[in-house]
């Protein structure tokens, strides 16, 4: 009976994730606002679970320097560090500390992982079907322009979702959010370089 309930909950949460995913493409502002009020913890659990499957899949394509589970645990640490950083910073900036909840940050930042997952997944698949290095032929140049445009589109979408995640979770204004993002980059860029140096992440999964 309990298993049946769990299965129904998981399926309904999965459908909700799909619905929100489409919403984040078509109507990011309204959808992220709804996500920030969400209370169903199955949803971030499913997203983080899908990311685990991705790391398991991509392990066979990477140099296999580290086990997939270790890379995944490191991703969890990075993700929690990011969420906690913005949560505590919002606590410092906010006048009404009661309206700031960790849950809201956790949900919105989980959903803002979707563009990252899509970029990493498509890059991995392209690695299989159109293996680098790129040549200087017309096809190579064409693909390079397409891939740059694709990566830029995903990056802009990711920035919009991250901005909205901070906006609806912290309830701060535009300038404060930009200030918070700059403060985040001050420690996150050297941290990413460190991860690159140890060959843990080439592009940080965040």
């Amino acid at each position, binding site marked *: 009976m309990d298993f049946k309930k769990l299965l129904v909950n998981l399926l309904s949460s999965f459908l909700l994730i799909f619905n929100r995913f489409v919403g984040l*493409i078509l109507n990011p*502002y309204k959808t992220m606002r709804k996500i920030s*009020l969400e209370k169903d913890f199955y949803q971030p659990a499913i997203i983080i679970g899908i990311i685990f499957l991705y790391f398991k899949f991509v392990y066979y394509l990477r140099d296999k320097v580290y086990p997939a589970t270790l890379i995944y645990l490191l991703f969890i640490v990075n993700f929690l560090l990011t969420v906690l950083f913005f949560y505590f910073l919002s606590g410092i900036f906010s006048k009404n500390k009661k309206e700031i909840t960790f849950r809201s940050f956790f949900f919105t930042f989980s959903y803002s992982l979707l563009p990252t997952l899509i970029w990493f997944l498509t890059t991995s698949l392209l690695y299989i079907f159109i293996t680098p290095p790129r040549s200087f032929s017309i096809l190579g140049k064409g693909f*390079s322009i397409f891939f*740059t*445009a694709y990566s830029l589109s995903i990056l802009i979408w990711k920035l919009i979702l991250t901005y909205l995640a901070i906006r609806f979770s912290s309830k701060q204004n535009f300038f404060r959010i930009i200030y918070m993002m700059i403060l985040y980059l001050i420690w996150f860029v050297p941290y990413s370089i460190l991860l690159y140096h140890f060959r843990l992440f*080439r592009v940080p999964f965040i």
Partner: protein
Amino acid sequence: MSRMNVRMKQKLNEVFFVEPNDLGAGFLTNSFRKITAYLKVVPFIFIIPISLFVSFFLYFVLGRFLIKLVTVLQYGF
């Protein structure tokens, strides 16, 4: 009727639970609202042409370096 009132109240609470952005100067706030209005609904209509334009621009500025950069990015997963 009362159920509709409750739903209406919930919707209003959802819409107004963050204060509108105020950038200090009137023209800045207005410009911000006009620009962000395009990004709130189907932002890809604007994102895709901008990205294509930027990537063509980068190709003409950086040339072969962009192709090398794409090779590095393809190893980036």
